[in-house]
């Protein structure tokens, strides 16, 4: 029984709970429901037809390719950066940590624009790229670069605090037991961080697939070629093709729900390790 001062009148308690639920329903559930309702408004065959047009399929494929490349590269980088920051002392460490976080505070539009400034036709390297027939802006490499930039911090940020708190002792133990650097990483470091890593990869993937602002600037919006799913949604919406727009949007929503589900399952199954690394 809480102390007298902390006890609420039943009516206030009910109001607070109702308020919280109402707010969540209004801000989160209603839009989510709207997306699904609109997507299936003309039945599931219309939905099916909308997501299997060549342009829609191409946008799904492009999104998967961009996400796959970005997630793999940022995972490798994230582990390397977190390893260096957590296990070694070097000059400029604080600056590196701050830099890793930079993409979070930069507007995605700016993140896309910097690549246009560098690789666009009027950009620094534009003439050279054109002379060598290399396409970055309005092509897959630009989309990947912009996505990489935006999703840069997710894995590293998840790992740095955990690996810092774990310290170096386990790795030192492995070394004194005769393990090589690679064996130590594979058999000791990686298992120690596996859940945080998975968590970071999930978040990174969700953002990579959902990113709009940065890729919008570098994409060029060529349907069937450089439109990722979020860009395709906008294009269809601007065409007043609401079923098409919401059908593709519903796929993105589904992705969000799957990510949330996996994340929750992960947290629940491994709550001990996530709370206390040892």
């Amino acid at each position: 029984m809480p102390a007298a001062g902390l006890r609420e009148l039943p009516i206030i308690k009910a109001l607070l709970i109702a308020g919280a639920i109402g707010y969540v329903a209004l801000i989160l559930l209603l839009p989510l429901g709207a997306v699904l309702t609109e997507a299936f408004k003309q039945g599931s065959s219309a939905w099916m037809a909308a997501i299997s047009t060549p342009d829609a399929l191409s946008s799904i494929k492009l999104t998967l390719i961009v996400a796959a490349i970005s997630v793999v590269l940022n995972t490798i980088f994230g582990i390397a950066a977190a390893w260096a920051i957590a296990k070694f002392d070097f000059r400029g460490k604080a600056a590196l940590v701050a830099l890793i976080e930079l993409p979070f505070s930069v507007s995605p539009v700016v993140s896309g624009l910097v690549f246009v400034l560098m690789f666009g036709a009027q950009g620094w390297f534009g003439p050279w790229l054109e002379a060598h027939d290399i396409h970055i802006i309005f092509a897959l490499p630009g989309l990947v670069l912009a996505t990489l930039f935006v999703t840069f911090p997710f894995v590293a940020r998840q790992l740095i605090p955990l690996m810092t708190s774990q310290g170096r002792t386990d790795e030192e133990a492995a070394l004194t037991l005769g393990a090589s650097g690679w064996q130590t990483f594979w058999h000791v470091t990686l298992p120690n961080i596996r859940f945080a890593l998975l968590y970071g990869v999930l978040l990174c993937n969700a953002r990579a697939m959902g990113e709009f602002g940065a890729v919008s600037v570098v994409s060029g919006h060529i349907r069937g070629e450089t439109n990722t799913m979020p860009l395709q949604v906008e294009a269809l919406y601007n065409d007043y093709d609401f079923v098409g727009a919401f059908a593709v949007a519903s796929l993105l929503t589904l992705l969000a729900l799957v990510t949330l589900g996996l994340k929750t399952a992960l947290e629940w199954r491994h709550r001990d390790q996530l709370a206390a690394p040892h």
Partner: protein
Amino acid sequence: MSIRIEHVSKSYSAYPALDDVSLSIGDGEFVALLGPSGSGKTTLLRILAGLEVPEQGIVCFGDRDVTNDKPASRGIGFVFQHYALFGHMTVAQNIAFGLNVMARRIRPSRRAISDRVEELLELVQLPGLGSRYPSQLSGGQRQRVALARALARNPRILLLDEPFGALDAKVRRELREALRVIHNELGLTSIFVTHDHEEAFTLADRVALLNQGKIEQFDTPRQVESAPATDFVRAFLD
């Protein structure tokens, strides 16, 4: 195996952690490195393990100069204060780790490894606990597992960093006795770090007293007690 440390120095940024330290340890000796925190005793132990590299001086095991050898190739076992057991592995997997990471052509068979694990569990008096996880063990049991793991590859030298530091008095006493028995039985040369002089004196054949990166005295417990070499030693024992 005998150990020779000659003119070893090591500093962290500004202050010296070890200042021209020399020490000669005989084969089969049990030596304590004793001193207050910041005296350099742990740094010296880590240099012996190869976890730190001295700026000056050399370290020899027997006739072999190991100063620049990696920890893996030194033939040592190392026991950490907080056990450093691998939490995602069972006790048996922890103990077998050093054997499992060996190159395939010299690695013992799976059967031989599991026999060795059983043997080591007997040695540290934890038979039958191989399938447990470290989180299911008490502190004293964990340190016994860490000891068994460190001994798996038959090191000739055993290095222990405050091995009893995290344990309560009774467990500490039991583990101390067990360690001394194992040391004698296997004919090891053992060096342990401690800040507790009573522990150093009851366990060690000889005690090296360190202060501010220098060795103040290196002698048998009896000799240190009856004839302290410096004012620091006298004050530290009080």
